[in-house]
C-alpha cells in the first residue's frame, strides 16, 4: 500500500512538473494545480496512512489518524486554490496586456538572447 501511494504521488508530481515546464500559461497553471495535489498527498502521508482511524476524540476510539498533517494540508488546499486563482487571472491579464499567453511574455523560449 505504501509503495502504491508513493508511486501515485510520484506520477502526479512528475506530470505536474512536466506541465509546469510548458511554455503557455494555461498548462502551467494546470501543472501547478496538479503538483499541489501531489504535494498535499505527500504532506498528508507524513503522518502515516491510517485505515479506519478515529476522526474525533471519543472514549471508545482505538487508533487516531495523525491530526497535524491534516491541519496543515487543509489550509494548504485552500491557499492552493487562492494561488491557482491568482496565477490564472494573472495569465488572463498578461494575455490582455501583452497579447500572448506565453509564460515569457512572447512566443520565443529564450527572450533576451534571441532579441539581440
Amino acid at each position, binding site marked *: *500500500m*505504501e*509503495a*502504491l*501511494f*508513493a508511486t501515485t*504521488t*510520484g*506520477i*502526479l508530481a*512528475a506530470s*505536474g*512538473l*512536466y*506541465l*509546469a*515546464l*510548458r511554455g*503557455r*500559461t494555461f*498548462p502551467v*497553471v*494546470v501543472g501547478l*494545480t*496538479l503538483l499541489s495535489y501531489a504535494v498535499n498527498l*505527500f504532506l*498528508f*502521508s*507524513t*503522518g502515516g*496512512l*491510517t*485505515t479506519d482511524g478515529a*476522526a*474525533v476524540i471519543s472514549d471508545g476510539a482505538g487508533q*487516531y*489518524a*495523525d*491530526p*497535524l498533517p*491534516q491541519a496543515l494540508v*487543509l*489550509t494548504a*488546499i*485552500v*491557499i492552493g*486554490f*487562492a*494561488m491557482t*486563482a491568482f496565477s490564472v*487571472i494573472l*495569465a*488572463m491579464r498578461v*494575455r*490582455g496586456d501583452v497579447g500572448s499567453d506565453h509564460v*515569457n511574455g512572447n512566443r520565443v*523560449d*529564450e*527572450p*533576451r538572447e534571441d532579441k539581440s
Partner: protein
Amino acid sequence: MSLLLIVLLPLLGSLLPLLSSNQRRHQCALLTAAMPLIALLVTLRETPGVLAGEVPRLAFSWVPALGLDLALRLDGLSLLFVLLILGIGLLIILYARHYLAEADNMPRFYAYLMLFMTSMLGIVMADNLILLWMFWELTSLSSFLLIGFWSHQSAPRKGARMALAVTGMGGLALLAGFILIGQIVGSFDMQTVLDSRDVILADPRYLPALLLVLLGAFTKSAQFPFQFWLPQAMAAPTPVSAFLHSATMVKAGVFLLARLHPALAGSQEWLYLVSLTGLVTMLFGAYFALIKLDLKAILAYSTVSHLGLITMLFGLNSQMAVVAGLFHILNHATFKAALFMTAGIVDHECGTRDIRKLKGLWRYMPMTTALATITAASMAGFPLLNGFLSKEMMLAETLETPLLGGLAWLIPVLATIGSILAAAYSLRYVRNTFFDGKPRELEKTPHEASFPMRLPVLVLAIVCIIIGLFPAFSATGILTTAADAALTMPAPELHLSIWHGFNLPLLMSAIALIGGFMVYVLRQHLFTFHRQFPSRNSLAIFEGAVQRLVRFTQWGIDTLENGSLQRYMLWVVISALAVSGMSLMGIETLKGELAVQKADPLLIVGAAITCFAGLATAFLHRRRLISLIMLSVVGLMASLAFARFSAPDLALTQLAVEVVTVILLMLALFFLPQKTPKESSASRIVRDVLLAAGFGGVVASLNYALLTRPLNSISDYFLEHSVSGGGGHNVVNVILVDFRGFDTLGEITVLCIAGIGIYKLLSRLRLFMPSSDSEGRPWSPDRYPMILASVSQSLLPMALLVSVFIFLRGHNAPGGGFIAGLVTAVALILMYIAHGVEWAQQRLSFQYQPIAVSGVAIATLTGVGSWAFGYPFLTSAFGHFHIPLIGDVELATAMLFDLGVYLTVVGATLMILANLGKVTTSHRPSKQKEKA
C-alpha cells in the same frame, strides 16, 4: 554634560545654516560659526582640568545588547584633536565664506561641513569602540558629500565615489576588527580595552584583529597602497581639502593608531606593519609631491607623505616617538591647512592651479606670498618653525629604532631622504608659484586676496611661528597629556627646545635642507627620468575596475535571470533535485523498518485511475478542456484518498475546493486560447520528460522512505490536550483555530490578499473575448438552463443550512469554518451559474471584499481580545452553556475565530469567482471574430 555639548552643538550647527538663504552670506557664515565657537569655549573651560590630569567621562546606555553605549571622554589625546578640529574648523568657515562663488549653495556646504565636524568630534571623543566606528563611517559619508559638492562636474563625483569606496571598505574592516577586539576583551568600553593589552597581545585573534584595524586606519589616512584616493579627493572645494584632507579626517587614521596604541602596540607585528607602511608611504608621497604639476596635487601627495611619517612614528614602539608623532599631527595640521588655503587663494585669484603657468605672483599678492613662504618653510623643516622641531624629533627616533635589526641604519637614511624630498617640494611650491619670473598665460590678472580670506592663513602662520619659537611654553603641556593617553605609562619628560647642541639629528636636518636645495636645482633631470614611466591615472584604473565588476555581475544576472520563467523553473527544480537526491543517497536502504500494509483491490483501482488521470492531464495538455477534466478527476480521487485514510475534514475540503477550482479554470479557459500550439522542440520535450521523471522518482522515493519509517510526531500532545485545552473533539479543527491559530490567521490573511489582488487584476482588464469555440462554431445563444435554475434555487436554503450545520459542529466533528465557507461559496456560485451574473447580482446585492476583510478582522480581534484578560494573543476560552430547546452547547472563543475563517473563505472565493464571472457579462461580444 559639557562633553555632550561639544559633540552636539556642531550637529545643531548643521541645521542653522539651512535657515539662512543663499544670498545672505554673512548671516549664513555667522550662524554656522556660532555653534563651533560655543563648543570651543566649552572645551577651553574643560582644558585646565584635563591638563591637570582629569579625564571627564560621560556614558549613557544605548543598545546594551550590542555593547553600544553613548559614551564620551575628553582625555589629552581627545583634547588635542578637539582643539584642532574646532580651531581650524572656525578658520575654515571664515575662509569658505569668501572662497565660495555666488553660484555655490553656501548653506548646503556649511551644513555638510558641520555634519563632518560633529562626526569627527565624535571619533576623537568616543569612549566606546562601536560608537567610534559609527562616527568613523559618518566622516566617510560627510566627506563623500563634501568632495562631491560640485556635483555638476564629473571629477568631484568620481573622486567622491572613490573616497567613499576606499574609506567605506576600510570602515567595514575596522568594524570587524573592533568586534574581534570586543570578543577578546569581552567589552567594547574604551577604558577596558585600553587596559587589556596583555590579554589582547596573548590572544591568537590578535593578528587578524590588528590587520583589520590597520586596514581601517590605513585606508582613512591614505597609507600605501591605499593612498590613491586622496589626490582624487582634491576635486573638492579647497576649504574641504584644507579641513578634511589635511588637518582632520585623514588624521582619523593616525588618531586611531594613537588611541589604540596602549592596547595594540608593543608587538613585533605592530612594529613592522605600522612603521614600514609609514616609511614606504612617506617616501612614495614625497616623490610624487615633487613630480606633480597641480598645486593641490603637490599638497595632497605631501599630505600622504606626512601621514606616512606620523604612522611610522607610531609604529616604532617607542614612547618618545609617540610624542613626536602627536607633535607632528599638531604641526602638520597648522602648516598644511594654511598651505591649502594659499593654494585656494592662488586658484581663486588666478583661475588656475597649474604650476607651469604660475610664476612671480609675489608682485601681485605679497602678503599671501609671505604667508605661503613661512608655512612652506615649516613644512620643509626650516629652523625656528614648528615643522623643524617635530621633524628633528622624528629623525632622532629613527636613530634609536630596533627595526630591521642589523639593517637598522637604513631607517634614518631613508627618513633623511624623505626629508630631503620634503624640502625640495616645499621649495618648488613656493619658488615656482610666487617667484621665478613673471606669470604667463593667466586668464585674469591676479591681485591680492581680501583680508578676511588671508586672515585664517595668517592665524595659522602665527601659530607655526609661536610653536617654533617657544615650544616649551606653547606645546609641552598639551603634548604631555595627549601622550599620557596614548601610552600605557606616564609620558616621558619632554624637553622641547630649539637648540639641542650639535648632534646627529641636527646634522640630518641640515643634510635634508641642503640636499633638498640640490634636488630642487637638479629637478629637471628627475622629471626627465620620471617621464620614462607610463603615466598611470588611478581614477581611470579605479573606474575601470568598477566597470569590470559591474559588467561581471551584469553577466551573472543575464545568465541566471534572463526573463524566462522556464529557465527559472529549470534552476529551481535542478537545485531541489540535487539537494533531496543527495539526502536520499545518504540513507542506506529505501525501505525503512516499518511493516508494509497490504493493499486492497479497491485501493489499487483508485491508484490506477489517479495515475492515469494525472498522466492524461500531462499528455493531453494541448487540448485544454480535456486536460482540465482529467485534472478534476485527480482532484476527486485525492478527495477519496483523504476519506479512505481517515481524514474526513480533508476529504470535504478537497471536494469543495475541487468544485470551485474547476469552475474557475473553466471560466478562465473561456478567455484563453482553447488549444496549446505545438511549439516545444523535440530536445526540449526530452529534457522536460527526463527532468519530470527524475523529479517524480525522487518524490516517490522520499515518500516511500518516509512512510516506511517510524515517526516521532508532536501530534500526541495535540491529541491529549484537544479536549482539555481546546474544548473540542475534532483535533484537526482545534489545531486550526486554537493550537496553531496564529498560522491560520496568517493563512486567511493570504487568502484575503489574493482575493483583493485578483480584484485589482480584473479591473480594467482588456479581454480577448471569443464569440465562437476553437472550431469556429458560435457559442450557444441559449439562456440559462431551466432545470438547473429551478433546482439550484430550491437547493440554496438547504445548502446554507448544511453549511451552518457543518460550521457549528466543526469543533467536535468533521467540519469547521474552512469547509462551511467553501460549501456556502459553492452554493452561491451555483446561483450565478444557473441564473447568470445579472440575476444573481440583483439578489445578492452585497460586496464581497468587506466580507473577506471583516473575516480577517474578526479573527484578529478574537486574538486581541485575549489581551484584555491578560492572556497572550489568541488564547482561547470555552465553556458549556445551556440553550433552551437545543440543550447543552459547548461554546469556545475559538468559534468566533472560526467565524472569521468562514467569512474570509466565503468572501475571498466569491470575490474571485463572481468578479471573474462579471467580466463576461458587461461587454459580452457579438459575433465579431476573436482578435487573437
